[in-house]
Structures are given as structure tokens and as C-alpha cells.
């Protein structure tokens, strides 16, 4: 078990190093002024490895660079925008799981039924519907036509400030969670179909367990384990979705900052933020694997 975890952690470290290398190569491609701003002056002449290590050293000390356009350090921009993005993504992910898990199990249990076909069609449509189109249509109907909710997201600062403004938070969360449900439901359906075909389901039925008991005690509980992996692996997709939602609803979160930086050629910000997001995603998938190993007795015992 510990050997497995150590190997998995080592692998994650390699991936993190490669993420920094990819970002660094992009820094080197940036035009002179922007590159100097990120790498520090007097560095442009030194050899590649020395530049990389000195940049890595400063990043490791929390120095992500300085935005000349915003006249602020990248770290302080990140500190201000991250709580808003967390409020948006955490709320949406929780809602998406609460809908997608029962929906997927229902589809698997009533495979081929009308409900299954309707839900499959809906997930396909939401999968193909870009989130900015979905969000725009929601704004047109719920904010412009009927004044139920705000057309602009919460402008308050901090995690609790954003959550408290439910009037403005509803539409962004609805957009992001519908998109996430489409990803999760497809996965949950196939996970539940797999569970239903397992021997323990047949054994439970042979012991006389009813449909409800089989679905809740056996299929649901066993399908919950891969959900941990799913959430961990979906971090990049959810962050990408949050970027679109933040740009549409004008929420000044992490994604919005990257978007504005890209529009203004603010390379220091796009690179610093993408580095943090990439590392967060690697950590997310590592934690998903560890969680999976701890939760699933079959994996836990086979690894000892």
C-alpha cells in the first residue's frame, strides 16, 4: 500500500515538473518585454537550464511574477480571484453529483426504457451545447425576459460573500452544473451498468433482495467509489467550464482574470495562473487515486 502510494506520488512529481517545463517553454516563446517581466531582467543571456532553475526557484518561493498591466503581483491577483471561483465550482460540482448519480443509476436500472432514452438524449444535447450558449439562453429567459435572477454574477469578494448572493449566483451555478451533469451522468450510467453485471448483484438477488435494496445497498455504494476518481480527474474540465461561465457572467474569478490577461497580452498572468491550475489538477488526480485506493477494499487489500 505505502509502496503504491509512494510510486503514485513520485509519478505526480514527475508530471508537476513536466507542467512547469511546458509553461517555461511557453515563457521562452513570449516576446522580449513580456519574457523579461516573467524571468527577471539580466536573465535573457544565461543558458536555458540556469534560466529554468532560477525561475523554478522563484516560483517555489511563491513568486509567480508581476503584472505590469494590472500593476499587481500575480500572487495577489490569484488570492483575490480564487475564492470566487471556488464558490462557483464547489457549489456546481455538489449539485451536479446530487443529480447525476441518481440519474445514472436510474438509467442503468431501466436500461433501454423511455426514461433512459430521454436522459441519454438530454445528456448528449447538454454535452454538445456550449456553456456560453446555454448561459446566454438562461440569461435571456430568466434575467432579461423575466426578472427572476441577475444577469451578472456576484460581485462580492470572498467565498461566503459570493455564496450569500444567491440571486446573482443562481444562473452561473445552473449553467456550470448542467454542463457538469452531462459529463458525470454519461460516466455514472456506464459505471452502474458495470456494477449491475457483477456477481455480487446476482448473489444479492439470489438471497431475495428486492430491486430497491440491490440498487441502494449494492449498486449505489459500489458506484460511489469511482465517483471520487471522476471528480478528481474532472478538475481541468470544471475549471475550463468555470472560465467560460465567469466570462459570460462577469465574475472576477480565476478564469475571468486569465481571459482578461489573454485579451491584454498580459503573459505574466496567463502563465502564472495556468501553472497553478495545472499543478492543482495533478494534485487533484493524485488525491483521487489515493482516495480510490483507500475506499475500495479490493484495491486496498490487493496493494498491501
Amino acid at each position: 500500500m505505502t509502496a503504491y502510494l509512494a510510486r503514485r506520488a513520485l509519478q505526480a512529481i514527475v508530471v508537476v515538473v513536466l507542467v512547469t517545463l511546458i509553461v517555461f517553454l511557453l515563457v521562452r516563446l513570449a516576446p522580449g518585454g513580456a519574457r523579461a517581466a516573467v524571468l527577471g531582467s539580466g536573465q535573457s543571456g544565461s543558458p536555458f537550464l540556469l534560466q529554468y532553475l532560477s525561475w523554478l526557484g522563484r516560483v517555489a518561493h511563491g513568486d509567480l511574477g508581476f503584472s505590469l498591466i494590472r500593476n499587481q503581483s500575480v500572487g495577489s491577483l490569484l488570492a483575490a480571484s480564487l475564492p470566487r471561483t471556488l464558490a462557483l465550482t464547489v457549489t456546481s460540482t455538489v449539485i451536479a453529483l446530487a443529480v447525476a448519480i441518481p440519474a445514472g443509476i436510474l438509467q442503468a436500472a431501466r436500461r433501454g426504457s423511455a426514461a433512459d432514452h430521454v436522459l441519454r438524449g438530454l445528456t448528449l444535447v447538454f454535452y454538445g451545447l456550449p456553456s456560453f450558449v446555454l448561459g446566454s439562453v438562461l440569461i435571456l429567459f430568466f434575467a432579461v425576459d423575466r426578472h427572476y435572477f441577475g444577469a451578472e454574477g456576484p460581485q462580492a469578494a470572498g467565498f461566503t460573500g459570493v455564496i450569500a448572493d444567491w440571486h446573482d449566483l443562481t444562473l452561473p451555478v445552473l449553467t456550470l452544473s448542467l454542463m457538469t451533469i452531462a459529463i458525470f451522468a454519461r460516466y455514472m450510467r456506464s459505471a452502474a451498468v458495470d456494477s449491475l453485471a457483477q456477481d455480487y448483484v446476482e448473489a444479492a438477488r439470489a438471497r431475495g433482495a428486492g430491486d430497491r435494496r440491490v440498487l441502494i445497498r449494492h449498486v449505489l455504494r459500489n458506484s460511489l467509489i469511482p465517483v471520487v476518481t471522476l471528480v478528481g480527474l474532472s478538475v481541468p474540465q470544471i475549471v475550463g467550464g468555470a472560465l467560460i461561465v465567469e466570462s459570460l457572467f462577469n465574475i472576477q474569478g480565476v478564469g475571468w482574470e486569465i481571459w482578461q490577461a489573454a485579451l491584454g497580452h498580459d503573459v505574466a498572468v496567463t502563465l502564472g495562473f495556468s501553472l497553478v491550475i495545472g499543478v492543482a489538477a495533478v494534485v487533484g488526480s493524485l488525491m483521487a487515486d489515493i482516495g480510490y485506493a483507500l475506499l475500495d477494499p479490493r484495491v486496498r487489500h490487493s496493494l498491501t
Partner: protein
Amino acid sequence: MTMDQLTPESADESPVPGAVVARQGSPVRGSRGRHAGPAAAGLPSAAELWAARPSWGRRSFAAIRANPLASAGAGIIVAMAAFCFIGPLLYHTDQLHVFLSRANLSPGAGHPLGTDGDGNDELGRLMIGGRISLEVGAASGLLAAIVGSLWGAAAGYAGGVADAVMMRVVDAGIAIPTVVLLLVMVSIVRPSTWVLVLFIAATSWLSTARLVRAEAITLRVREYVQAVRVMGGSGMRVVVRHIAPNALGTIAVNVSFQIANAILVLATLSYLNLGVQFPSVDWGQMIYLAVQAIDNGYWWQIVAPGTAIMLVVVAFTMLGDGLRDGIGQDV
């Protein structure tokens, strides 16, 4: 359909030996034929069946026809391509000049889908804009699938340290969301439309690489691959002549998904005002302009291009799903 189910079985028994035998000349083939000939007179041999099988293209066509999901997807794609490339020949509109006197008209006589903020006819603009969406989508989807297949096949066949390093690079690339990676690139260089193809392909080949690597790992231990190795075939020959053709089904399915994804990514980038630049127009840019004035409630300016994007993306996804089901039955 019966033919479809027949060929893979015979293919499973001796597809590649058959092909190798035919190339290497008569001795082996002859002795086998003499042996099998009189015993099973009138029945075609496995090699003959293999030679008589329908071409790969014809089999995929049959697979699409047999699957309602795939044929619906293919039908929508053909209809949308006709709409974008033939439509403007039949429905003439002026998309170059600004006509403020007829800006933001709702759908009605003369303008079936209304007009946008510059007074351009929405229906005509939808046709023109679809061209770039489809062209860039197809080109970058195809490019991503090719690059990803080569990377994945090489990693899967090489194995060991090379495989591990190549796949960790893919892991690192996948960790950064596609949109974020694209925004980083765009913040460094503003691309022309054809550089966009490279950018989109550069950020989306990673998933194909994972898929094809998994396929290559299962293929490299098959008996016919080992047979070629025993006969002295080089690694290059194995990858190009045996692993790549046998992974073609997986790759074909993936091309369809990659195109769907590329169309979505291009639309997203244009919606962020960082993709196709004025005076070129695509569906994402139409939505960007409409969203700037969303408070006015001109719903047709968002619903029309939005529906077009969704239709094409869903169509390519359906085609991919259907092809996968068809190939799944095959194998």
C-alpha cells in the same frame, strides 16, 4: 451485414499471415493450398475470403448505414455542409456593408432569422460563418488525431522508459485545461485562422494519444505481431503494417470526436473574442457580438448560431458513438 460478421472471424484466425504469405510468394501459400484444397473443395479458403472482403471504406459506410445513430449524425453533417457551402450560392446576402437602418430586426419577412447589430442577415451570416467553423474544425480534428495516433502508437509499442516518459508528457498536458492552454498561447501570439488550426490541434491531440497507446499495447502481444517479429520484421514494419491498420477503427472513431471537440473549442475561443478575427466570421464570434448587447433581448442572434454549433457537435458525437458501436460488434 452477414458479410461484416463473417470477415472479422476469418480475419481473427489468419488475417495477417494471409497477407504476409501472399507477399512472400508461393512456397508456403502453395503447400497450404494443396493441403486444404482437395479436402474442402468448393469452400473458399480464409485467404480468399480475406481478399474478397469489402474495402475498409465500404465497411465503414455499411457500419454507418446499419446504425441509426451514426446515419442520423452523418445526415446532419452532410446537410450542414451543404447549408454552409452551397447555401450562399442560392441565398444571396450582403455580409460586407453596415445597414443601421435594418439593424436588430426580429425574424420575419425578408429576414427569416432576423438581422444582427450591423444589419446583416442572420441566415446568410450563419452560412458564411459555418464555413470557417467546419473547415477549421475538420482540419484541426484530423491533425490532432494523426499526431495523437503516432505518439500513442510509438509509446505503446516502445514500452518501458520511453513509454513512461511519453505518457507523463501527455498527463502534464492534460492537467492544464484546453481553454486555459489556448489562452496562454493566444496571449503570446495572436493567430491567423490557419495558425489557429495548429493551436487547437496542439492542445487536443493528448486524449487520442492515450487511447491509441492502450490499443497498441493490446495489439503488440497478438500472435500475428509476434509471428512477424519471429519472421524478422522490423519494429517499424510492425507499427506501420500491422498495429496502425488494426487500430484504424479506434482512430476513425476518435477523428469524429476530435472534430466535434475542435468545432467546440474554436467556437469557445471566438466567443471569448480571441479566435477568428473580424472581418472573418464564425458562429462563436456571432454569439460574442450578440452577448455584448444581451440586455436588449435579441434572442435570435444567440439562438441561431448556438443551435448551429450544437447541431454539428452533437452530429459528430453521434457519428462517433455509432461507429464505435458498429466496430465494437465487429471486434
